[in-house]
């Protein structure tokens, strides 16, 4: 019969030399496996007397427990060592640039239009669209701008051939509002963003094509005070700062009274700076109360109907917001410019 402490010491020594879990497993099999030393000793128990069986049995059990514990500890130790080594080997340089996904971009004018649609949408304004090729009637006559009227000089127009068909490229998105009114009953609350065209030489602040957003609100008691409130709220939302308005008398054939609308300078919050030529105000848009002739052209009875209308140049607004200095950048399709707007 083998000596218990002898087996224990031998196992201990062998375990000390083990450097991998695999080796530990082999040693385990040698002692505790099916053909292992301890297993063999346990089999010899049946040949012993009852008294000896008891003693030897207890002895062997104690040894088994001790060996199991030894093996567990060894395994744990080696596992720990394995992790530590791996963790060191696994080191990576985290300052190396990440693998970027290719990033596209929305056009800055799209971003502005969507933002305005969302802001006005949240105030109940429906966004509507219309054709870019328009008839003279929808673009001028219906908007109280008769033919051969000097007011037409305010809008440099692209005409289409043949001239006799009186087709043009719309000079503003007001025709869209008119078309909408013809198909809908008041109260009206709409905005009409879209591409418009002016026969103008291009430079840093003028383009032959650009974007406008026009707004229209018609009901029985809509007034100038309402316009001031609505537009100040919308623009404050857009610029993410408090904006006030200043109205100056102006003339557009489709509104009466008509105004130019200035806003608090967004660069200096109205204190005065080079951006606003020290006035504290920035010119932004035209607006006014819808002319009764226009309501009539829309098929309404102008009596007991009042409304405000406004038009903002989206390119101009976008240039203000991002401090872009040349309108032609919007249509030059240079990705070095467009990439900057995600």
């Amino acid at each position: 019969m083998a000596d218990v402490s002898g087996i224990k010491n031998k196992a201990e020594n062998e375990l000390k030399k083990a450097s991998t879990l695999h080796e530990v497993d082999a040693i385990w099999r040698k002692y505790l496996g099916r053909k292992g030393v301890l297993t063999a000793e346990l089999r010899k128990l049946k040949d012993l007397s009852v008294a000896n069986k008891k003693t030897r049995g207890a002895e062997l059990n104690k040894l088994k427990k001790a060996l199991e514990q030894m093996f567990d500890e060894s395994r744990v130790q080696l596992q720990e060592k394995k992790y530590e080594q791996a963790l060191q080997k696994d080191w990576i340089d985290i300052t190396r640039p990440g693998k970027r996904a290719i990033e596209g971009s929305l056009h800055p004018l799209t971003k502005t239009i969507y933002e305005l649609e969302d802001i006005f949408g949240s105030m109940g304004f429906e966004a509507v669209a219309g054709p870019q090729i328009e008839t003279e009637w929808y673009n001028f006559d219906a908007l109280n701008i008769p033919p051969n009227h000097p007011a037409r000089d305010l809008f440099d127009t692209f005409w289409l051939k043949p001239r006799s068909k009186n087709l043009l490229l719309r000079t503003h998105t007001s025709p869209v509002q008119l078309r909408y009114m013809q198909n809908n009953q008041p109260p009206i609350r709409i905005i009409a963003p879209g591409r418009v065209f002016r026969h103008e030489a291009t430079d840093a602040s003028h383009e032959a094509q650009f974007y406008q957003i026009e707004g229209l609100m018609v009901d029985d008691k809509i007034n100038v005070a309402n316009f001031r409130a609505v537009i100040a709220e919308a623009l404050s939302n857009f610029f993410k700062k408090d904006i006030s308005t200043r109205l100056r008398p102006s003339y557009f054939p489709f509104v009466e009274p008509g105004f130019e609308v200035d806003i608090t300078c967004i660069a200096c919050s109205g204190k005065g700076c080079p951006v606003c030529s020290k006035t504290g105000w920035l010119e932004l848009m035209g607006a006014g109360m819808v002319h009764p002739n226009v309501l009539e052209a829309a098929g309404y009875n102008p009596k007991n109907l009042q409304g405000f209308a406004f038009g903002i140049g989206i390119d101009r607004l976008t240039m203000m917001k991002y401090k872009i200095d040349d309108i032609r950048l919007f249509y030059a399709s240079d990705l070095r410019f467009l990439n900057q707007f995600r």
Partner: protein
Amino acid sequence: MHSFEVENLEEIPIFKPQIPNKSKNPNSKSDWIFNIDILPNRAHDAVGHIGVAREVAALVGGKLKLPKFFNIRTTKQAGGVDVEVKDAQLCTRYMAAVARDVGVGDSPSWLRERLEALGLNSINNVVDAANYAMLVTGQPLHAFDLDKLQGKKLVVRKAKKGEKITTLDDETYNLSAKDLVIADSKNVLAIAGIKGGKIAEVDKNTKNLVLESANFNALSIRNTARSLGIATDASYRFEHEIPLSFAEDGLGYLMQLLQEVAEGKPQKQVLDIGRKTQRSVVVAVRPAYASSLLGEKLTAQKIERILKSLEFGVHTKAGVLHVKVPVFRMDIEREEDLVEEIGRIRGYENIKPEMPVAALYPPKRDIKNYWTRQIKKYLASRGFNELYNYSFVAEDAADIWGFNKNNLWELENPLNLDFKYLRPNLIPGTLQAARENLKNFTEIQTFEVGEVFIKQETNNEQTRLCLAIAAKAASAEKFYELKGYAESMFNALGISDIWFDDAFGEAEKEHYSYLHPARRAQIKLADDIVGIIGQINPRIADNYDLRGSLFVAELEMDKIINAAEKENIYTPVSQYPQVVRDISVLAPTNAKTSVVMEIIDIAGGELLRDVDMFDYYEQEPAGERSMAFHLIFQSDERTLKSEEVDKLMQKIIQELEKNGWEIK
């Protein structure tokens, strides 16, 4: 904030004080020029110093002090000159005065300096006085040398065909029967209301003058000025229609001034033909309406005070103000015009912003807008940059791209040849962008959503989407990348039955000649063409010096949006495992992938859930290629047995081998 915009202020050195108004501070070193923008609605009465002064008087609460006018007595008889107005429609009023023994010479320095400061050249004291009188009163005036008139008679008539005139600045114009002229018995002396001629010009030898102060038809002046290509201070004022009453003021001011600067004896009797004044208008304004439109409570008294300051007459009856509009305020026609007068003089800053009250209906969602947004955001997130290109296409571009000019919208007045037509599709702009950007990037991905224009009966304005990939390295792989993005996008939109067709009819081949003939396809939904995809024909690419290849896919947005499906349809996931078998097919290059996949699909039947191509290998010299597929089998009702799948695989292989292809 109440009247007009002052574009800028210019400080200028001092003028000698003008008789009779002395400068308040004789020691002041400078004067100021106000550059004021008068808009068309006030171009009747305010394109003149008196008109502006009238506004200022209303604003500061002062009283307008008119300058001294010569005392005129109007008659219908001649006072040394006879005038016949042949066309009263085109000349509503004509006043003629005579001044004798005039000393024509240099203008006094104050007059010369003022004219020059205000942008006019000094000619001589008579011409200068006429110009200055126009600037002050808003009435254009003209002086003729009386002694150069043939027959001492002026005729206001339409020009005869073939008549010519040489103007004061030595230009000669051919006149048409539509142009109104001032003539004597022999010659045309002036283009009425626009420019005077050399024949009767006032020079240093002139002794006697005829002074013209008239009112000409705005449209006639406008048409003549446009057709002859002339624009003058006089034509500008007449085009905007000035009050009939100005004729008298202008003439009176001129005659007074002439006495001061040119000696001579103006005759009191002045010939006056035609209507003297516009009918005076009375417009009613209700304080309640004015308050309602402006959003500020205004009393009748407040309104009356404002209107009176503008020289409006006010008579209140039963709470309504009946307002007598001065004849020179030709812009006031209705109640809203008065509300503007009230609002602007009162000051819009007094109107406190107040939110309107409205029903809380959410705005209607526009389906096109919704899907366009989804598509744009999808593409931007997949690495495409959005472009906005010009809506125009150049003359030569139309030729290079092979567009049928009969189907192009042409501009009557393009800015230049680059802007001659409206674009029939988005591709030329996309190529232009690609060419420029390939100078800075090796590869780009762009998209544009925009309107294109085709001259046809219906649907002549369409919204299209153009996706593009351009790369310096020419590679057919880019086609498949683009196709992949397109297919993914359709999938995201819930459109499942898109297919690509390269069978082009003769007309279509012609129409799409700008795409590489061996690398293009129509994109179809069932039988309907929704777009095209392909590589830009190298011929065109070279023409534009494109350093690389460009692949485009252009789609009709309306068709895509109609087919888009917002709601996903849920299909329960099968709880039974999939069986995946791989197969490799070696076939000649011209055997289409779609044909191979179709054979597999049909042979595989209902249990073949997916055919996924994972490898594709061209074997160059042999003219063959091998395609490898994962075939995925699954049932919703049971676990498939190996033998079942084997049987199906055999069937598939059989069908494929029928075509003489090698299967692995």
